[in-house]
């Protein structure tokens, strides 16, 4: 045990010295394996509760060390009808901005618990995603689902994340910020989805973020993904009608596996009329994940954001390098470095971040 922690500490130290850095995205696993999201997750659009295969992957294929079958490891099932899971991420971050003293702190980034109750097998169920901490309990997803999540049509009704582009764990990624569709912005409404062979498609009719307390307005979001073993491509669109101003988003995203490296790319463009005079924004992401050996992944990310296409000299970029070490099933250590580049008169757009994270999941 001591040797194991020594190795973990040594890896973290080396990574920190190399200024390696954090990246929290998980969809690279899908690209590296060629799987659809629904292969490992209960939710066909990815993220959250893992299914039987997802837990098997987490126990056997992902970590550096595979535990013995004799060990009574977590199966995710409390009963035949109730599956639960969760993620806990604890961070240490050091942020440096020009003209400001550096700040460092430990924080509990999140503790989330997921549950899926099967009412009628393969037909009817209830799914819940609840953030327990920090800042008290917060319901992220709660919906009834009817139909097959693996092959055929299904319907969700309730509160859920919208399907748009890569469902990155890093909610601060430019593509997730500019679109405003990420895992901190669930919406209420219905989703009709279709999973078949290489295809995955969703159509959502929801309130729309700016319409939470109004009697009018809506958001339509749709996404289609085609998946092959070593590549995939998706297209997504969203349109919000709102008293606060209409908002239209289009996005293309793709994944490609070249040997041990999985590549993710996404480009989005947004037209937002809620801004005085209207504005058009753009964002792009390129991520490469190199699975060096089993349990070790090196992630490099380059991002671009243009907050207003009609304004010159306001573009921002962001580069990240992160090392992910999964020594054991259900435990991951991450360390990374991220550098923002923006206009020189804005300190926050030029910050640097060093992060270490302990990620426990089940």
């Amino acid at each position, binding site marked *: 045990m001591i040797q194991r922690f020594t190795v973990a500490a040594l890896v973290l130290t080396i990574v920190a010295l190399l200024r390696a850095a954090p990246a929290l995205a998980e969809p690279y696993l899908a690209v590296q394996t060629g799987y659809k999201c629904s292969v490992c997750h209960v939710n066909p659009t990815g993220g959250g509760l893992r299914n039987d295969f997802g837990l098997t992957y987490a126990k056997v294929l992902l970590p550096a060390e595979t535990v013995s079958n004799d060990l009574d490891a977590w199966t995710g099932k409390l009963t035949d009808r109730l599956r639960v899971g969760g993620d806990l991420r604890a961070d240490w971050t050091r*942020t440096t901005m020009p003209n400001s003293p550096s700040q460092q702190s430990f924080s509990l980034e999140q503790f989330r618990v997921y549950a899926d109750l099967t009412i009628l097998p393969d037909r009817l169920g209830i799914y819940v995603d609840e953030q327990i901490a920090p800042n008290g309990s917060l319901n992220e997803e709660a919906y009834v689902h009817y139909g097959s999540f693996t092959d055929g049509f299904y319907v969700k009704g309730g509160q859920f994340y919208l399907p748009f582009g890569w469902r990155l764990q890093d*909610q601060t990624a430019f593509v997730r910020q500019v679109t405003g569709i990420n895992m901190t912005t669930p919406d209420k409404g219905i989703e009709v989805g279709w999973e078949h062979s290489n295809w995955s498609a969703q159509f959502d009719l929801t309130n729309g973020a700016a319409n939470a307390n109004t009697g009018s307005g809506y958001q339509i979001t749709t996404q289609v993904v085609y998946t092959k073993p070593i590549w995939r491509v998706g297209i997504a669109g969203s349109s919000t009608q709102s008293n606060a101003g209409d908002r239209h988003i289009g996005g293309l995203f793709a994944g490609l596996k070249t040997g041990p490296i999985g590549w993710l790319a996404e480009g989005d463009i947004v037209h937002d009329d809620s801004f005085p005079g209207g504005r058009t924004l753009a964002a792009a992401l390129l991520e490469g994940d190199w699975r060096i050996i089993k349990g070790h992944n090196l992630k490099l990310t380059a991002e671009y954001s243009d907050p207003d296409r009609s304004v010159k000299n306001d573009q921002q970029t962001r580069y990240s390098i992160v090392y992910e070490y999964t020594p054991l099933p259900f435990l991951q250590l991450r360390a990374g470095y991220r550098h923002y580049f923006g206009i020189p008169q804005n300190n926050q757009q030029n910050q640097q971040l060093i992060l270490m994270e302990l990620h426990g999941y089940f």
Partner: protein
Amino acid sequence: MNSPLRSLLFRSAVLLSATLIAACAGNGEGLDANGRPLVPGGGAPPPLSADFDSIQANIFTPICSVCHVGGGAPEGLRLDAANSYNLLVGVPSTEVPSLLRVNPGDPDDSYIIQKLEGHAAVGGQMPLGCPNTQPCLTTSTIAFIRQWITNGAPAGTAAAQAAATPLNVMSIVPDSTEPVTETPPQVMIAFNHELDVSQLATHSLHIEKLAPGAAPVAIEQVPARISVAGANLRALMIWPSRPLTAGRYRVVIDANSSPSFSDIAGQTVAVAAPDERGEGVISTFDVEVRP
């Protein structure tokens, strides 16, 4: 996969990689700190310091008023330059009404500090989503706001300049220009001078709910009261006695009350324009709240 398609995908990946890696951040030329074009005659905001103008220019305008603006401002709190001071200083918070948003001289008991530091009893830390979706304000930044409150939360230079002109109404929130999307906790009338509070009657007006249609036909009357915070005598607050549901409303001065207010120098100004029935209508606004 056939080789031409594989080659195309590989070349596309290389091209996209090269483009993104080579992409440069803007040099910021001709822009302010928020990345917006500089207004001719304007300039960069003043450095952050413990005065209201600086806090407005560096924090409230670029960060807070992204959400806290217009009819959809959360909790009815508009933090644009025209309204932030009057809706903050001496005004009870809607989430914890026992606390003032800004309690002059007492930052620890000012709700804005609790929200920014993340230990408020209700709701999340501000800016909303921090630190996950955007950075939280740093401790040193919040320290400037704390110091401003400790100093008594004085108004900015704009208020001092406006005081040189005759008594006038500076803004009314909400007004008829756009609907509010949450039940407004109060109607605020901001003046450029401190009011003579001895001339105010606390129950001299009411709020009418109007029937749908062009003609203003009142279908319900909601009592309201007037208050002025001792910390900010420039802002008159009108509090409805119960939450306003969706519909069109107007604030009306009672027939036997004066539609005029006066400052401590004796200047008067009419805040209510007579409507078709001769009643003094302060503000007409729409509430678009779900029943």
